[in-house]
């Protein structure tokens, strides 16, 4: 048993996989969990930057796979939280330097000692995505409330399903803008769920503080900062650990017919 390996992926680039991985890892560690995150985006690594651990990297994932160092030597400890480690990606190598089997072997070495292994997947559906998916026990799909991101998420969910391992998959909608949704200018949470029919793990609002914190290498979930995004991410972390955290106003989803009736009702009152 041991760790749960959770792969964070999206299909479309730039929707917030790395941001979510870094912040969830910190939030889980703050809940007292032992956490490793693995940057599977070889050649375009940036999880280390967002986590603020770039300057501490000595070895990377490819060094481990090619036997130049031991696995533990490549793991960078985040000193700001109790039990958080980063296994960084190689910056200079091609993604084919690592195979799906390597990823399975590597995670199985770590499973015994940690509670969560989070894998930050590269964009796309090619090699890097295969690497990130191979060892996954669970998959978190990140999407934005935009048609193109949702399309790609749908494709990815189909590919995960096609894997045939029945990997539990859940959805995080990132960068939601409540007032745009209210005006009908952005896909609503229900619109996205209607298309993807995948369990919702949480909704992260669009939040400038995310950008500020990423630039400083200071994940928002580190201190007790209360911003809309950091609270949403902490809730998601608690849901991952199995806590029943109710889904907020923005995220609310009710069953098909009831939901429609409710919507109709609201409309008729307006």
């Amino acid at each position: 048993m041991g760790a749960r390996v959770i792969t964070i992926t999206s299909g479309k680039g730039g929707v917030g996989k790395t941001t979510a991985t870094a912040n969830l890892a910190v939030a889980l560690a703050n809940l007292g969990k032992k956490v490793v995150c693995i940057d599977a985006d070889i050649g375009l690594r940036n999880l280390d930057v967002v986590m603020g651990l770039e300057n501490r990297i000595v070895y990377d994932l490819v060094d481990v796979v090619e036997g130049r160092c031991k696995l533990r030597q490549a793991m960078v400890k985040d000193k700001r939280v109790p039990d958080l480690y980063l296994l960084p990606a190689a910056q200079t190598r091609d993604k084919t330097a690592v195979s799906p089997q390597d990823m399975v072997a590597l995670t199985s070495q770590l499973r015994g000692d940690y509670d969560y292994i989070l894998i930050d997947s590269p964009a796309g559906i090619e090699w890097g995505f295969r690497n990130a998916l191979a060892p996954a026990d669970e998959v978190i799909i990140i999407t934005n409330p935009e048609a193109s991101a949702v399309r790609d998420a749908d494709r990815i969910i189909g590919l995960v399903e096609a894997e045939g391992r029945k990997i539990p998959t859940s959805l995080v909608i990132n960068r939601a803008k409540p007032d745009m949704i209210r005006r009908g200018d952005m896909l609503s949470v229900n619109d996205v769920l209607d298309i993807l029919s995948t369990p919702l793990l949480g909704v992260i609002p669009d939040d400038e503080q995310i950008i500020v914190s990423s630039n400083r290498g200071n994940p928002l979930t580190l201190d007790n900062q209360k911003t809309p995004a950091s609270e949403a991410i902490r809730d998601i972390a608690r849901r991952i650990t199995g806590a029943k955290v109710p889904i907020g106003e923005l995220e609310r989803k009710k069953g098909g017919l009831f939901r429609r009736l409710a919507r109709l009702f609201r409309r008729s009152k307006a």
Partner: protein
Amino acid sequence: MDDSITLKGIKEGLLVTVKPEGRWSDLSGRLVTLIDAQGSFFRGAQVTLSLGPRELRQNELANVRKQLDERGVILKAVLSDSTATLEAARKLELRTALHVTELAEEQSEALELRPPPIDPEEYGSPGVMVKRTLRNGRTIHSEGHVVVLGDVNAGAVIVAGGDIIVWGRLRGIVHAGAGGDESAVVCALHLAPTQLRIAGYITISPDDKQRKPRPEKALVRNGRIEAVAWE
């Protein structure tokens, strides 16, 4: 008068019944003469060939199809009591039992067509059933019908020789009757395809999001694709 070959108009087009007696080469020649004698009357017709117990090889069937083809007549289906003939017809991708039951009801006396044995292996039209949502990037190709128990999401594609039935929301691209069968239909609980084709016709969904989803059937009528309530 020679009654070794009879022609009859049916709902599906033209039913050609060839008596089991006589040599095939003579009879197929006679069939061609009969059609030629009608000038362009049968041009564009879809022919169902009823052969009784006669055994035909694939090349014999292919030959008659070619000759009909040259006259603008399309060989569509073969009714036969011979497994060899049915097999040959299937190899040529001909239908081997086109609405046999309907035929039997409407025309059985005139045609002396025996009621078909209930054997889906032999008479059922081939098809594919998909018991999950077809997501973006998935494609299904089938020469027969396609049934999906789930949604067909935008970016998914279904191409079927026959009908397409979606027990869910249809938002992807579908092509029914892809081999040219204009009688093919597309049904869905919520019909909102990115693009819908039947045989050579093509349409896109009207852009009215307010409309309440209801089960609909798309079919070719009056030279265009129309959607009607599916009940």
